[in-house]
């Protein structure tokens, strides 16, 4: 008797615990997302606050139609001449003017390697200006001349250098410098590294042609921002390229931009939170169904002696509320712990974020509310059923609740799937202007539709999936199949949780393979160079181009430059390339026209853009930047992945327009003189690159790998998140198995009585679990791969040219799902096998 009571408490505890964990995981995701966002936002806001302390800003005007394209984010404004400085200084109310003289720099640390920004954050060089109130010199002196630098505090730590040390920086060329001071911005730098330079040095490096992006203007004491801006506007009346604005507005804009980017990140994370909450809700519903079932007679008795359905309903919901509150509270704690862990890891990687993890009332409130509502809603269905079951029926021995997928649900699901497939196919095949959103809507429709329709397909699909097991393991396979198909809705929702995660895995795998394959094909199809040189910062020092060209054995060193330009009124990133490059180190598919025309100053345009804008060979385009503008002729329409831009200009035209400060050498294609020793050449190139630290020499195969690696790095994070969603889905399987075994106790007793061994019973449970897992995985794979197959057609312009389906990887995932299913079955199988035959047979 005591044993029975203890066992019952223990098993209930386990079930409640599973519900609490389910809520915990979902809520942890929600709370973690919100507090991570708040922490990132406060870090970046304080950076904005610290780095943009001017009372007013003078900057280039925006072009008519720029700004919305994320690829030109922050570059949509033209540059303004540095010569405006005296005019600004002479304006009434102005105390100081600080031009924005900053750009990429590489600092060599104590250990002789480049000091890398934490987590891929950039390294900046900037002019030290005592007037800039955002920078405080803590110790040492201000940098004076090209041989002196001051390091920002975190940069100093990361580099291992100290005041007085001599090191070198890569600023155009390699320069020997001495560290003369340490400065602070008074805020965490989120991993970015800062080297403060003498103003003249910074101006020469970052504004060689005298153009800067902006000036920060500081007001005299007592001068209001508004007055200052009005006076600046008057002073700038004859400068159409420049505009004055308040400091507040600049800071607000910068924060809004950050908020947009963080918004993407949190939306992305919240999708995973939603998945985990969906599974959590499902686990709670299952748990309460079990508990309600076990207490059915108790409820019937209560009803018989006069309890109202409402009272029964309420008593169950109280339990759900307890589960929800416990889970949410623990979840908020876990979420904070998650963010703390993340911050710790990031800090170890050199990316410092602001001190305290913000946990405001709204984060706690929203997280608790989400957990509570999910628990209550999930428990409401079984609670309602318990409350409305007539007492007489509940007293009966076996209450078999017919659980068939409703017709309406299936029809709705089927309609959604069909519409979704139509949308996805349309986005891939038809030439839609908004293919992306159509694809997204289609994908959402398919996933939702499949979730709705899956209970209807469960019996048929599992019959097929189970066929080999049924044939191989008689009668265990057939028993397991019967168990997973007898309650299609439950099996479908268990598998559904896994399905969503696996659909993402499938889609991401296809995307990754396609991206890698696309870049590989670019290199294979387009690069005819013997070697390619790139920089870890994506910016090659310009000096290296001449050095490489001068090497014996080098026939040609073609540098691909990128920079912002306004083409026919639209701001875009353009490429400048030596006209002779085509056919020498780069082979580009020409749709019409001739690339030789680039030698005459004509430009090449991307085929898809030409089609969209109606451009043809011979048309004239206006190419402009800031105050300058030029008419150019379209000489060729090309289809190139390597030159992944709309407009490619001959290098001389490009450099005449793009300010030197924004002209970046992205890649250097090197061709060897015929017959020269490639190994020797490689050694020479490597030697030339060595002083720059960040420059690597790659052959074509390595170049392709390097490009593919960039994709894979992003994917690691994605796979980690997906792994978590799979873990939660496994919890769902465990829970469903536990429920189903509890419901089948009597049947299990019968099977054991007619001679089913313990191992055989465990095998049946395992097969059930594996079938469910494989069903969810295969369904998810079909959905994910199907949707992802449309991606290359839709995003061909973004460089996704090849559809590659990684069959091996997908098969491995399906194989893993077998393992996952087997693991999920361990607990429930052991429990089922331990059931006492007589107890089970006489179980009610």
């Amino acid at each position, binding site marked *: *008797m005591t044993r*029975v*009571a203890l066992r*019952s408490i223990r098993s209930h505890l386990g079930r409640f615990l599973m519900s609490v964990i389910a809520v915990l995981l979902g809520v942890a995701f929600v709370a973690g997302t919100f507090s991570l966002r708040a922490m990132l936002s406060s870090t970046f806001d304080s950076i904005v606050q610290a780095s943009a302390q001017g009372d007013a800003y003078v900057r280039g005007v925006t072009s008519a139609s720029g700004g919305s394209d994320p690829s030109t984010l922050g570059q949509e404004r033209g540059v303004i001449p540095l010569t405006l400085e005296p005019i600004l200084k002479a304006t009434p109310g102005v105390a100081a003017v600080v031009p924005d003289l900053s750009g990429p720099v590489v600092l060599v640390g104590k250990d002789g390697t480049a000091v890398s920004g934490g987590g891929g954050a950039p390294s900046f060089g900037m002019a030290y200006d005592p007037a800039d109130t955002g920078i405080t010199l803590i110790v040492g002196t201000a940098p004076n001349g090209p041989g002196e630098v001051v390091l920002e505090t975190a940069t100093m730590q990361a580099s291992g250098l100290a005041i007085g040390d001599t090191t070198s920086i890569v600023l155009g060329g390699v320069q020997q410098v001495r560290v003369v001071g340490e400065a602070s911005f008074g805020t965490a730098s989120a991993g970015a590294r800062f080297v403060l330079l003498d103003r003249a040095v910074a101006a020469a490096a970052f504004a060689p042609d005298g153009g800067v992006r902006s000036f920060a203007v500081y007001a005299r004491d007592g001068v209001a921002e508004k007055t200052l801006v009005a006076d600046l506007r008057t002073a700038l009346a004859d400068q159409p390229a420049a505009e004055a604005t308040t400091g507040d507005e600049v800071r607000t804009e910068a924060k809004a931009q950050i908020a947009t980017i963080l918004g993407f990140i949190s939306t992305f994370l919240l999708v995973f939170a939603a998945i985990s909450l969906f599974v959590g809700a499902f686990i709670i519903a299952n748990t309460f169904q079990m508990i309600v079932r076990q207490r059915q*007679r108790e409820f019937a008795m209560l009803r018989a002696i006069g309890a109202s359905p409402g009272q029964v309903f309420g008593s169950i919901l109280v339990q759900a509320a307890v589960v929800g509150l416990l889970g949410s509270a623990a979840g908020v704690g876990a979420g904070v712990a998650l963010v703390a862990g993340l911050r710790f890891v990031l800090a170890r990687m050199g990316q410092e974020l602001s001190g305290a993890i913000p946990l405001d009332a709204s984060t706690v409130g929203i997280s608790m509310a989400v957990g509570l509502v999910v628990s209550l809603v999930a428990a409401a269905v079984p609670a309602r059923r318990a409350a409305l079951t007539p007492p007489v029926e509940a007293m009966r*021995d*076996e209450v078999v609740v017919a659980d068939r997928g409703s017709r309406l649900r299936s029809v709705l699901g089927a309609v959604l799937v069909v519409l979704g497939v139509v949308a996805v196919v349309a986005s891939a095949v038809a030439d839609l202007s908004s293919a992306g959103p159509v694809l997204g809507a289609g994908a959402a429709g398919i996933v939702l539709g499949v979730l709705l329709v899956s209970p209807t397909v469960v019996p048929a699909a599992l019959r097929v999936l189970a066929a080999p097991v049924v044939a191989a393991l*008689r*009668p265990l396979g*057939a*028993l397991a*199949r*019967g*168990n997973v*198909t*007898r309650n299609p809705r439950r099996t479908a929702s268990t598998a559904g949780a896994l399905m969503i995660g696996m659909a993402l895995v499938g889609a991401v795998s296809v995307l990754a393979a396609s991206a890698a394959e696309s870049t590989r094909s670019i290199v294979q199809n387009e690069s005819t160079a013997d070697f390619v040189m790139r920089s870890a910062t994506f910016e090659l020092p310009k000096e290296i181009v001449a050095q490489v060209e001068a090497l014996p054995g080098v026939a040609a060193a073609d540098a691909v430059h990128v920079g912002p330009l306004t083409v026919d009124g639209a701001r875009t990133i353009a490429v400048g390339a030596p006209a002779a490059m085509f056919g020498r180190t780069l082979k580009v598919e020409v749709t019409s026209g001739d690339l030789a025309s680039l030698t005459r100053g004509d430009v090449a345009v991307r085929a898809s853009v030409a089609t969209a804008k109606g451009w043809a060979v011979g048309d004239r385009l206006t190419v402009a930047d800031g105050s300058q503008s030029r008419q150019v002729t379209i000489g060729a329409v090309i289809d190139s992945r390597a030159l992944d831009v709309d407009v490619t200009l001959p290098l001389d035209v490009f450099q005449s327009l793009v300010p030197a400060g924004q002209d970046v050498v992205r890649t250097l294609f090197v061709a060897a003189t015929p017959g020269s020793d490639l190994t020797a050449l490689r050694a020479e190139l490597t030697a030339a690159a060595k002083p720059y630290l960040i420059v690597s020499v790659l052959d074509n195969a390595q170049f392709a790998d390097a490009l593919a690696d960039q994709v894979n790095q992003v994917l690691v994070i994605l796979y980690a998140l997906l792994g978590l969603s799979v873990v939660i889905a496994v919890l769902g399987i465990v829970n469903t198995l536990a429920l189903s075994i509890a419901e089948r*106790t*009597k*049947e299990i007793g*019968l*099977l*054991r*009585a*007619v*001679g*089913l*061994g*313990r191992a*055989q019973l465990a095998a049946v449970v395992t097969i059930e679990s594996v079938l469910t897992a494989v069903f969810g995985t295969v369904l998810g794979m079909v959905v994910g791969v199907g949707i992802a197959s449309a991606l290359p057609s839709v995003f061909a312009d973004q460089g996704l040219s090849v559809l590659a389906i990684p069959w091996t990887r997908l098969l491995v995932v399906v194989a893993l799902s077998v393992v996952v299913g087997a693991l999920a079955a361990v607990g429930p199988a052991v429990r089922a096998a331990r059931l006492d*035959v*007589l*107890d089970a*047979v*006489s*179980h*009610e």
Partner: protein
Amino acid sequence: MRALAADPAATEQIASARTLVKVYGTGEAAVRALDGVDVDFARGEMTAIMGPSGSGKSTLMHCMAGLDTPTSGTVLVDGENVGRMKQRDLTRLRRTRLGFVFQSFNLIPTLTAEENITLPLDIARADVDRGWFDTVVDAVGLRDRLDHRPSELSGGQQQRVACARALVSRPSVVFADEPTGNLDSRSSGEVLDFLRRSVDELGQSVVMVTHDPTAASYAHRVLFLADGRLVGELEDPTPETVLDALRALGAGRREPVPHGSRSSAHAMAMDRDAAVHGQHLAAGHDK
């Protein structure tokens, strides 16, 4: 009363028990559900076990069938000592030597009637003897129902499927626990008739627990249990003789029954038995 066999393992008995004791609980709360039972079940006979609620009749059957472990005493089934068996051996025993028919929930709902019938053979990975299968199926008259699921069968048909399943592996003995407890009289008749014919025509041995005198009258022999002890028996019973015997048993609460002279202990044992029963019910509710 038949004399007990000198050798319980002798082949005339399909199953036998000697000084079988089953105690539930410990200390003050200990209850003797079986209090030293000696019994032989003859091969090729149908034996019914009767007795009031809590008399220990189900416990006796469960111990005989290896579903429950006796506290002391020996249980032999077809010459094998069931009481000493480990789980693995018990599973094998159930698979090959025993057939079961329970009061309710006898069939796996996801399997067809035919699959349910062959289930013990499938589990044992034994070949189905089609000739024997046909004999059994025809005997229960389910030829046209083989493809149906249990939910598509009537209660009587379900019990007949269960009987067929119990017989298809040619077990040494079939244990039936209130096989007609949930059936109307016509369906009961069909099921009992089949069980009896399985003995008479197919040479089976059947042990059946029942509280229904009509059901008991189908047996060759009826054993009466009270307070965990064997208190009487009837050969070639009819409903009337069974009823008479039960009445005599009821009277035994006040007067000594002819079989035993333990009247003083009897009433006390009866109360204890009721306690056992009550405890079982409570346990059932807790699960």
